């Protein structure tokens, strides 16, 4: 079985403004998505994730390069039949109800009335909108629209589900529900490609990731291969007289000796945590290497502030 999605040296240049200034949004992006995997498309804001996904969905035409879905060119109708897509910050017809929107989408896939009703009711329940199906979309919150967007992406029971920032606008409970849904989709034999800049979501559920920075592909592969297995440092937390102390022990230092000294000095050892490279470290490293718009500096600052 060949890859479900094949992006081959995709490039997109936009001509902006009155003087048609050329801006390259995506440059030489190549990757594949294999069957029944969860593929995370990762990158900071403005990295070109949405532009790449729009090229795959036939919303934007590549300036050069090509892509195939199910082995067929983009915009092939047979391929589209097997595909579900959630746009970023989805907007739908606000004069329709949730049920009516799903009915419309079902019609576009040629589903008969009975199938449309059954799928719509099932999907509304699945995304937690079972009681809001008759409500006009203008009365939906952002999170509800996001859930409905996922429901409409699944109306045709697709083999490949492409989700652009599916966790955007959701509260922590909603994010967990969508993560669980993505994992369930994989268990059902589907393939999921989703974009995000929320690293924890990627770490928890993705089989493989692609990292896009400044419109260029930096890394593609399983997280286990992308992340360096080497020890960065060991975090030791000690406590004495109610005051705690955090030590970062470099990899070459003798942690055992340090712990012995601490115990001899009457301190309690609260925790010893070896720190290997995390996805966040990798992400910062890649953004740093690309040095896009001060993104690396910003991320480092954010991390320092969070830790302090």
């Amino acid at each position, binding site marked *: 079985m060949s890859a479900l999605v094949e992006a081959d040296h995709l490039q997109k240049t*936009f001509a902006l403004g009155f003087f048609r200034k050329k801006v390259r949004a995506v440059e030489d992006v190549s990757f594949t998505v294999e069957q029944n995997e969860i593929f995370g498309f990762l990158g900071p804001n403005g990295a070109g994730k949405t532009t790449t996904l*729009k090229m795959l*969905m*036939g*919303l*934007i*035409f590549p300036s050069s390069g090509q892509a195939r879905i199910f082995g067929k060119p983009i915009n092939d*109708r*047979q391929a*589209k*039949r097997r*595909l579900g*897509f*959630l*746009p970023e*910050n*989805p*907007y*739908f*017809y606000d*004069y*329709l109800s949730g049920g*009516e929107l799903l009915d*419309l*989408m079902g*019609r*576009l*896939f*040629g589903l008969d009335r009975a199938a449309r009703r059954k799928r719509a009711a099932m999907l509304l329940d699945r995304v937690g909108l079972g009681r809001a199906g008759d409500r006009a979309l203008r009365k939906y919150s952002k999170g509800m629209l996001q859930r409905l*967007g996922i429901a*409409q992406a699944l109306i045709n029971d697709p083999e490949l589900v*492409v989700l652009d920032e599916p966790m955007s606008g959701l509260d922590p409970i909603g994010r967990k529900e969508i993560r669980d849904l993505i994992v369930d989709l994989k268990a059902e034999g589907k393939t999921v490609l989703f974009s995000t800049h929320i690293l924890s979501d990627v770490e928890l559920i993705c089989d493989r990731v692609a990292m896009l920075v400044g419109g260029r592909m930096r890394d593609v592969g399983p997280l286990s291969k992308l992340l360096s297995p080497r020890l960065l440092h060991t975090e030791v937390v000690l406590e004495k007289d109610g005051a705690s102390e955090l030590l970062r022990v470099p990899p070459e230092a003798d942690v055992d000796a340090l712990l012995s000294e601490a115990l001899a000095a009457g301190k309690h050892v609260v925790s010893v945590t070896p720190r290997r490279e995390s996805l966040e470290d990798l992400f910062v490293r890649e953004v740093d290497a690309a040095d896009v718009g001060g993104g690396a500096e910003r991320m480092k600052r954010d991390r320092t502030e969070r830790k302090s």
Partner: protein
Amino acid sequence: MSRIVALALNTFREAIRNKVLYLLALFGVGLIVLSVPFSQGALHEQMRVTRDVGLAGIELFGVLIAVFVGVNLVYKEVDRKTVFALIPKPIHRYEFILGKFVGMLMTLAVMFAIMSALMAAVLSVQTEATNAPSNSAAIVRAIALLFCEVTVVTAIAVLFSSFSTPILSGAFTLGMAVVGHFTPELRELTARIGTVPSRIAIAGAMRLFPDLNLFYVSGAMVGGQRVTVHGSFVDWGYVGTAALYGAAYSGCALALAMIIFSRRDFV
């Protein structure tokens, strides 16, 4: 075909849930009803006024609805990003344009039916009182011609809506509709000015504008005879020929809209 129907029904549903449309239709209905008390003279004169004002009202509000709703048809889908969820579905982009156009025609057909029914009701009351001929067959043909006219205007609105903003599209569409009503006069005028090459160029450019005079013929000279909905009016053969012209013009405008839409990036 089912996808075009689905998109058309959705466009129709959007239109009938749009309050502005009701307001426009209400103005049209009001115009027909108000033509009765404002018309003076004998009853058969009042019938003439009802026919004239009624048909003018149907044309005016039909064109206004076609312009103001039509120029938003495609633009709004792109601007509000609703198109992002539709294009990845198994539809061709040209089906999207056709669906919007057909949905708009369905809306206009309902508006025409409402206004025509009202005019027919007023005329039937007046006919009973006077025993004068109602000329209903001529009125049906006149309404069919007006529907052809709004079809052409809708196609132009969709064309501009496929690449321009509603304000510009509205101005362009209204401009073409106005010029389209004066094509014979403009042709006559341009035939008398400038040099031969410039006349040929202007005559060619004039062909780009729709000849909307074909569609509202009451009071005009057709085939050397004056035709009017109050007496001798054009036959169905004329209506068929005019409809063919309208279909051809609309087809060209829509084909252009489809080409433009099929090449657009939805950023």
